[in-house]
């Protein structure tokens, strides 16, 4: 692949930092897995070399993400959302169906459809690479997370990390953890926060997250309709072309002309759909995930607050009974310290989140408008 300058965070506006630059320089798609070549350039002393690459698979990204989530030290940060699993199933199915139906269409039709599907496959591929890259860039740009040991191992260790996927028991445990969290979430959301900033953020994030979810779903539907219409136009162009070549009357040149126009229309509509997909749908999906991560942060803070309040109550009780007072004091101090630490970093994280979000939306919307202009000029 071609080299490119700096982190090209697709949807997220990140600062360029020469001390640590990470990107995905290459990717290989095999039967049921994708192999990413993670390329690092760094002046930090932690690494043996200044520039190096390793090959990683999706599971290893998830391992890294989960290690952040499980690390108590990072409770006060918005953990960059994990990239979604590469999903080529739909595309692969379509390609297979095309292969089976080869006999029932003309050679031109088959070639055209095959090109279309291959382009679609490539687009999905590019997207999944971009999502994995954004995750790494976010980690690299974060002042604390970039120093994480697991992260460095991920970047540098050139052997397989032997991260097996979660087995059934672990998946079940996760499931229950989430159930407890959402029940807690309801409980915690109900308690009004003393701190205005966090109270406001809580209200905002809950509403924002839901609206992003809705917008994301609707944009997906809109883009799918666009793609369907483009497919129809493709078929119509083919039929008109066949009619044009078969017709012996004056109509033949009419049919051929319209077929040509339809073909051009289709190309444009496909591109519009692809642009919308990239600039709009991916943006919305990303912020859906990141707003969830922000909500998770608020939840952790609330949890810490509840623990702190419980520790206070326990200390009062211990003092009243004059039993295990030292233990209660230590516990209370720990909780207090944890809560304050989380609150402090959470505030900064949420402010940064807003800055990033606003910049990303502005950038993408402007780019989308420019692309629409470009396509419109072409018609």
């Amino acid at each position, binding site marked *: 692949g*071609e080299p*490119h300058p700096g982190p*090209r*965070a*697709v949807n997220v506006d990140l600062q360029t930092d020469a001390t640590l630059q990470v990107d*995905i320089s*290459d*990717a*290989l*798609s*095999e039967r049921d897995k994708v192999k990413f070549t993670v390329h690092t350039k760094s002046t930090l002393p932690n690494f043996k070399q200044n520039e190096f690459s390793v090959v990683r698979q999706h599971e290893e990204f998830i391992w890294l993400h989960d290690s952040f989530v499980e690390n108590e030290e990072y409770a006060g940060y918005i953990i960059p959302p994990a990239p979604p699993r590469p999903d080529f199933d739909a595309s*692969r199915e379509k*390609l*297979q169906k095309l292969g089976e139906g080869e006999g029932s269409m003309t050679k031109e039709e088959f070639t055209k459809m095959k090109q279309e599907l*291959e382009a679609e496959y*490539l687009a999905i591929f590019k997207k999944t*690479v971009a999502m994995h890259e954004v995750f790494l860039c976010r980690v690299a740009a974060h002042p604390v997370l970039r120093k994480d040991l697991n992260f460095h191992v991920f970047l540098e260790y050139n052997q397989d990390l032997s991260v097996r996927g979660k087995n059934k028991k672990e998946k079940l445990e996760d499931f229950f953890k989430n159930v407890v969290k959402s029940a807690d979430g309801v409980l915690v959301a109900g308690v009004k926060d003393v701190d205005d900033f966090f109270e406001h953020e809580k209200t*905002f994030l809950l509403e924002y997250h839901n609206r*992003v979810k*809705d*917008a994301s779903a*609707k*944009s997906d*539907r*809109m883009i*799918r*309709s*666009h793609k*369907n219409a483009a497919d*129809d136009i493709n*078929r*119509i162009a083919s*039929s*008109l072309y066949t*009619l044009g070549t*078969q017709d012996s*009357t*004056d*109509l033949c040149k*009419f*049919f051929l*002309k*319209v077929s040509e*126009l339809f073909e051009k229309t289709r*190309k444009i509509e496909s*591109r519009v759909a692809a642009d919308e997909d*990239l600039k709009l749908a991916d943006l919305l999906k990303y912020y859906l995930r990141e707003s969830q991560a922000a909500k998770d942060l608020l939840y952790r803070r609330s949890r810490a607050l509840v623990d702190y309040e419980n520790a206070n109550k326990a200390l009062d009780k211990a003092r009243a009974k004059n039993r295990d007072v030292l233990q209660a004091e230590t516990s209370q101090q720990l909780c207090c310290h944890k809560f304050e630490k989380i609150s402090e970093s959470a505030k900064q994280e949420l402010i940064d989140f807003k800055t990033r979000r*606003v910049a990303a*939306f*502005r950038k993408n*919307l402007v780019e989308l*408008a*420019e*692309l*629409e*202009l470009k396509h*419109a*000029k*072409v*018609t």
Partner: protein
Amino acid sequence: MCVCVCVCVQSGPASLPAEDISTNSNGPKQDSLFDDDPEDLFAEATEEVSLDSPERDVLLSDGPSPAITPITPPCSLITPHIDMFTHCSFDEIEEEEGGDSFDMHISVSDPEKVGDGMNAYMAYKVSTKTSMSLFRSQDFSVKRRFSDFLGLHSKLASKYLHIGYIVPPAPEKSIVGMTKVKVGKEDQSSNEFVEKRRSALERYLMRTVKHPTLLKDPDVLQFLESSELPRAVSTQALSSAGILRMVNKAAEAVNKMTIKMNESDAWFEEKQQHFDNLDLQLRKLHASVESLVCHRRELSVNTALFAKSAAMLGNSEDHTALSRALSQLAEVEEKIDQLHQDQANADFYCFSELLGDYVRLITAVKGVFDHRMKTWQKWQDGQILLQKKREAEAKLQFNNKPEKLQQAKDEMRELEGKVQQGERDFELISKTIRKEVSRFEKERVKDFKTIIIKYLESLVQTQQKQKVKNIIIIIFSISY
């Protein structure tokens, strides 16, 4: 499937070369589209041939029968008269005869629900405006219901299909659509259904009267003119689609018989192939266009939903400049895209309807070809029977049985008459089909050209709207 891809991830789609679809392509070229206007053929006709002229008898009985002589395109036909006959538009021939040019316009309008419940029906106003002397007045209208149209078609089909005339099929019955209307469901889909049917009935009548022979049929005249029409009862069971299905089944039965028609006329073979291909392609095209209309409607709905959702998102965003940006973008998308999509969809819808009409028309054409085969079959059967009788007669002569001989001779004479009639029938249907196909092709070319030109014109309009949208987008991107 194994795909090895070396990917360079960019922050946007790869820049693509601007396609050259210049707006000019619809300007000057459109003039050339009109150069081959079929109307010009009228001006070019140098010889006048009238249906009742003595030349017509010459056409029918003179010269070697087309069944024997191999014939390719009409222009290489035997006599110059036949050449003109097939090249001239049929309309012009009628001109000479009746002194009337084809000047008639029928509109089907004002659908009105009559009655209640399951016995309810839609009554349509059929208005005719014409200057042709064929009619009692110049401007008149009647009320008709759907089964009246079906009744008209079934009468015409029974009179003309088997002698080779392409009778335009009536619109299809639709139980689902009609039930909604009967039940009184006044929603968008039932209104659309009524409008679709109204438009289809109008096209059906216009096609029927454009046919010079059908126009003069008393059933057609009665349909258009008389205020009271006897209820067509048989159509409740049979729609024109049903009749066509029967025709097709009969045709299939003929095909399945072991006798294969000895097609010595290459013109028919070529045309049969042509219509088979056309049938296939038009069906495919029709399905795709219908699908497009459907998906574009969905797109319209989904775009509107998304626009609302984006506006909501904009509202919740704290940062006021960004929220304004999102809301404005949503509004722009919604207003302009809606107009654009609705217009384009209306055009595709017309195209879809035309294709549907032609799919049914071609079924009628194929039916007519099959009738010719049946006619040939009848003639051949007669010939075979005659041959057998001849052999039997010879035997009788040899055995010297005078009474039986006379009877045989009488039978033979009768059969000979039948065989000659069969041959004439076959020649007549073949000639009729040639005329019909020629007329059909001209109409087809005209219809498709019209709709394509309409599409190109609407494309120009879309470009105007796009220009407006561009201006708004420029303003938007400048302000942010």
